[in-house]
């Protein structure tokens, strides 16, 4: 490998006597460097969102994960950032008890059974008995035309927290990565943290294109809201007119799409 590199260098120096060094430098140092800093989005899909987000984050990020369910994403995050700290929220008691079992493995993960919302209060939480997606849960009531999917079969009362108030209580001064998969309340949570949002580097949200639930935050409103805080949409996997997952970041890296 080294021999062939040397041969190539000699070849270029002979071929470009008017600036051999700059040409060889460009080919062997600048081009590889440029390709190294660019993030190739084609390498990423819904299965490795955490790894994609890591490109925009420090190695020891503070992460808030809301809608942690049974911990599948939390485990990925915990492996990705052992030097970081993760705060995982899951209000559904069934999922929360499964989630908490990860505590023994990850000392740098804290678990909370409250739901994130715009204000701190107690509120009903709706879950559905849809076998295709048993994870459906939301603080928002399903609209009647979507009851076939979001049947809100079970309701229980949960403690809701405003994220900014929670951060002050816990003395969390910054959040690097905010993951919100909370059944339609994503936008109103973001709107309720006007100071904390400045510290956030990367946001993952579930996106909605239809009013599946009353008061749901729609993608068309989310996009301009995040743009005002300097967030750029990095990637958006979605089913047009239905739902999706989107990753936003304060742009500090070049991406190739």
């Amino acid at each position, binding site marked *: 490998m080294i021999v062939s590199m040397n041969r190539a260098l000699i070849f270029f120096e002979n071929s470009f006597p008017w600036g051999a060094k700059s040409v060889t430098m460009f080919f062997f140092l600048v081009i590889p460097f440029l390709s190294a800093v660019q993030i190739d989005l084609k390498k990423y899909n819904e299965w490795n969102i955490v790894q994609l987000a890591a490109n925009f984050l420090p190695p020891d990020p503070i992460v808030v994960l809301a809608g942690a369910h049974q911990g599948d994403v939390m485990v990925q995050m915990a492996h990705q950032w052992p030097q970081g700290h993760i705060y995982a929220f899951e209000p559904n008691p069934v999922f929360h008890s499964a989630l908490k079992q990860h505590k023994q493995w990850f000392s740098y993960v804290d678990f909370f059974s409250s739901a994130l919302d715009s204000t701190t209060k107690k509120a009903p939480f709706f879950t559905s008995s849809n076998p295709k997606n048993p994870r459906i849960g939301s603080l928002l009531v399903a609209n009647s035309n979507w009851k076939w999917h979001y049947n809100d079969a079970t309701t229980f009362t949960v403690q809701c927290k405003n994220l900014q108030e929670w951060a002050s209580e816990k003395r969390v001064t910054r959040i690097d990565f905010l993951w919100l998969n909370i059944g339609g309340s994503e936008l109103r949570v973001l709107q309720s943290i006007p100071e904390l949002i400045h510290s956030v580097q990367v946001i993952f949200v579930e996106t909605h294109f239809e009013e*599946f639930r009353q008061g749901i935050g729609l993608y068309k409103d989310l996009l301009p809201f995040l743009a005002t805080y300097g967030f750029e949409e990095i990637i958006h996997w979605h089913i047009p007119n239905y739902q999706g997952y989107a990753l936003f970041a304060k742009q500090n890296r070049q991406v190739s799409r």
Partner: protein
Amino acid sequence: MKTYLILFGFLYLGFCSELSASKGPGFWKPDEKNLSSKLTIITTTSPIPSNPSTEILEKTQQSLFKTPALKECKKIIVFDGVPLEQKYRTIAYELYIKNVEKLVNENPYFANTILVVNQEFKHLANSLREAFKFVTTPYVFVHQHDFLLVREFDVMNLIQSMDENPNLKLIRFNQFSNAANWWDGPVDSYIEGGAHVPLTRTFGWSDNDHIARTDYYLNFVFPKVTWNGAMEWFLHDSKKIQMDHLLYGTYLYGNLGEPPYIYHLDGKNSLR
């Protein structure tokens, strides 16, 4: 005694001529109506970005009718579940299933079709395993929701060949020309036991559209699938297949160098 010997001689000659004729190509022309007792078509489908539209599935199911005899066969459409990482697709996918239910009642290309819906994500092999619970025929045509059949093939003589030659276990329709490549290895036209249709021996195992023996799936393919994945992840091993091709029994439909029989509409990336 002489009479008996002469009679026996005639009987023996008659038996021999029958046997040799039955091995000759084109001797048996099976009735297309009987094909339904031999072959079930299983179409596998899963969440894709074009859901809830059924356009891709409609195109690919319609393409099966390029081989008119397939019209008579029982059809199963098996729906995989939604993977955890793609739960945002659930609503669109549920609407897609409802739309397919409508097609079964209204669209002639979906006549004689039953739907098998997996509630959980199982990936291709284990999703297909559920469909096999409804198979009563000795052969299955495993068809994926985004593969278009682009040319007619001789299904009657293919089934007849498989009936006669137990070495033919899986006949795949190639999405490329029948030629040596990194997946199929050094393909050739050697067919152990012969066939009434043109075939090419392959040393690759792919879950692209194919006709296979039902018992081959039940006794050989499924036991190798030990977790949720595609069949080829467990079965494709070119070296192993070259060492024991008779065990795998994989062939491509058509002669060496023949152009593709199927076209990939690529449902996964259709809208990206």
